C-alpha cells in the first residue's frame, strides 16, 4: 500500500471515529462544539499514559477515551442545562478552556507540543473505527436508541412517557466524548506529535459538518459523511488550490438540496426494502 493511500485511509478512519463522537450527542439533539476539547484530552491522556506509564498504545488510547469521558461527565451536568445556541456556545467555550489549559501544561510540553514515542499503523486504527461503528450501531438498536431519538424529537412528550431526559442527554454527551477522546488518542499515536492547535474549533466544526451532512437520523450517517468529506477533497486534488473552493461550493449545494443529510431513515428503508409487505389502504 502506498504511503499516500495509507495516509488517506488513516485520516478516514480517525474522522469516522470523531464523527461518531459528534453523532451521539447530535442524535439526542445536542450540538457539541467542544468535541475538539475532548479529543485533545483523549490525545494527551493517551500520549501521557504510553509515554510515562509505558502502557501499550491500544490500552493507552482506551484509557485516554475514558479520561475524556470522566471530564465530560463532570461538566455535562452544568453544561447541559443550556439549550440550543447557548449549549453550542458553552461547549465551544469548554473546548477553548481545554486548549488554553494544554498550552499552559508544561508536563505535556505546553505550547511546544508533545511527542509520542509509540506508533500505531492503519490496521489498528481501522479496527478501532470499525469496533466503534459497530458498538454505536448496536447501542442504537436497543431501547436506548429510541430513547435518544425520542428526546431529540420531543423532550416534553418523552418525559411524560417516563424517559429520563436528562440522563439520556448526559449519557449521549459522555459516550460521545469517550469516542472523541479515543479518536484523539488514535491521532496522537499515528502522527507521533500533538500540539494544542491540532484540536481547535475548526476540528469540532468540521466533524459536526460530517455528521450533519451525512445525516443524524441513522447510524450510517456519520460513516457516509466522514467518508465523503474525507475522500472528496482528495479526489479534487488534481484541481490544485481550487479544490477548497469546489469543496465548499459542494457543501453549500448539498445543504440546500438535502438539509436532512445524505442518509435518511426513509431512504434506508426503501433501499433495504425492510417493508416488503404491500402497504394496506390508509384506514
Amino acid at each position, binding site marked *: 500500500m502506498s504511503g499516500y493511500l495509507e495516509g488517506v485511509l488513516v485520516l478516514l478512519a480517525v474522522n469516522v471515529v470523531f464523527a461518531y463522537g459528534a453523532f451521539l450527542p447530535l442524535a439526542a439533539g445536542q450540538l457539541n462544539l467542544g468535541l475538539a476539547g475532548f479529543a485533545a484530552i483523549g490525545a494527551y491522556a493517551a500520549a501521557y499514559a504510553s509515554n510515562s506509564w509505558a502502557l501499550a498504545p491500544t490500552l493507552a488510547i482506551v484509557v485516554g477515551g475514558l479520561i475524556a469521558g470522566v471530564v465530560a461527565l463532570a461538566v455535562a451536568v452544568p453544561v447541559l442545562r443550556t439549550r440550543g445556541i447557548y449549549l453550542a456556545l458553552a461547549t465551544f467555550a469548554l473546548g477553548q478552556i481545554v486548549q488554553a489549559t494544554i498550552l499552559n501544561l508544561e508536563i505535556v510540553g505546553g505550547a511546544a507540543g508533545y511527542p509520542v514515542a509509540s506508533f500505531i499503523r492503519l490496521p489498528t486504527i481501522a479496527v478501532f473505527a470499525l469496533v466503534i461503528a459497530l458498538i454505536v450501531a*448496536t447501542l*442504537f*438498536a*436497543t*431501547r*436506548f*436508541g*429510541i*430513547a435518544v*431519538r*425520542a428526546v*431529540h*424529537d*420531543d423532550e*416534553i*412528550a*418523552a*418525559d*411524560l*412517557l*417516563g*424517559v*429520563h*431526559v436528562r440522563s439520556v442527554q448526559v449519557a449521549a454527551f459522555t459516550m460521545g466524548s469517550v469516542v472523541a477522546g479515543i479518536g484523539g488518542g488514535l491521532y496522537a499515536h499515528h502522527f507521533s506529535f500533538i500540539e494544542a492547535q491540532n484540536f481547535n474549533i475548526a476540528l469540532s466544526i468540521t466533524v459536526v459538518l460530517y455528521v450533519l451532512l451525512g445525516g443524524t*437520523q441513522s447510524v450510517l450517517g456519520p460513516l457516509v459523511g466522514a467518508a465523503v468529506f474525507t475522500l472528496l477533497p482528495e479526489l479534487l486534488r488534481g484541481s490544485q488550490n481550487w479544490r477548497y473552493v469546489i469543496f465548499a461550493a459542494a457543501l453549500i449545494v448539498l445543504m440546500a438540496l438535502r438539509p436532512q443529510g445524505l442518509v435518511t*431513515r*426513509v431512504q434506508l*428503508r426503501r433501499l433495504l426494502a*425492510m*417493508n416488503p409487505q404491500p*402497504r*394496506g389502504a*390508509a*384506514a
Partner: protein
Amino acid sequence: MTTGPSILELQSVSKHFGGLSVVHDLGFAVRCASRTAIIGPNGAGKTTVFNLICGLYPLDAGRIMFNGNDISAVPSRRRISLGIARSFQNVRLMPHLTALENVMVGQHSRFSGLSGILQPINLLPNNRWRAEARAALADAGLAFCESAMIASLPYGVQKRVELVRAVMARPRLLLLDEPAAGLNSAESEALQQLLDRICGDTALTLLIIEHDMHFVGTLCDHVIVLDFGSKVAEGTMTEVRKDPLVQQIYLGTVAKECSHAARCA
C-alpha cells in the same frame, strides 16, 4: 354518579401564569373506571388542568390526589409509572421514529435499570417488547403502518397510534386532550371503536377534553363543565345539557343544539 371510589381528585387547585389566573380553586373527583369529560369554552383552562395532572406545571395551591396518594410533588416523568398517561391536543408523536418505535417508547415506564434500557428491541425481530408493541398495533388495526415514519401517516392514523402508545404504559387513568378534533366522521368513529375496545377489557378510567358533544354524549358517563378556570356544573350529559348557565356559556340554546344535531345526523 359521583358515588364509588375516586381514582383522581383535585382539591382547591389553583394555577396562574404571571397575573393571569388560569385555574382558580378548582375541585373535582373522577370516579374509578368512569369515562369523564371536561367541557367548556376555549380558554376555560381545560388543557392547563391536564398539564397540572400530568405534572408539566407545578401547582400554585391545592393538591392532586391519585389513588389516595398526594402526587402534587411527584415529578412529571414518574407519574406515568403511577398510572397516568395522556395524549396531546396536537399529536405529539416522535416524527423521526416509525409507528412501531413510537409505540415502544410508550413501554418506557415499565422497566428500570440498565438491562431495561439496553433491551435490544430493534436488533432481534422476536424481542418480547417488540412483539408486544406489534401485537398492540395489530390489535388496533394499525399493523399496516408499523414500519412507516410518522410524518407519512394521515392525521387520523397518527391519533390512533398516539392512543396505542399511551396504552402501552398500562395506565389506570388515561387523559385524552381533544381526541376527535380534526378528524372526519369515519376517523372519529374508528377512534371511538378503539377507545371502546381499550376500555372494554381493562378497568381504565378515561378523562377526556372534547368539543364534539356527540362524541362526549356517546362515550362519557360524567361531564364536568369549566369556565374561567372554575367548575360551573357537573353531572351526566343530560343533566348538564339542561343547566341554563352551561347553555349560556358553552352549549348554546336548545334550538341551536337541535340544529347542530340535525346537521351531524
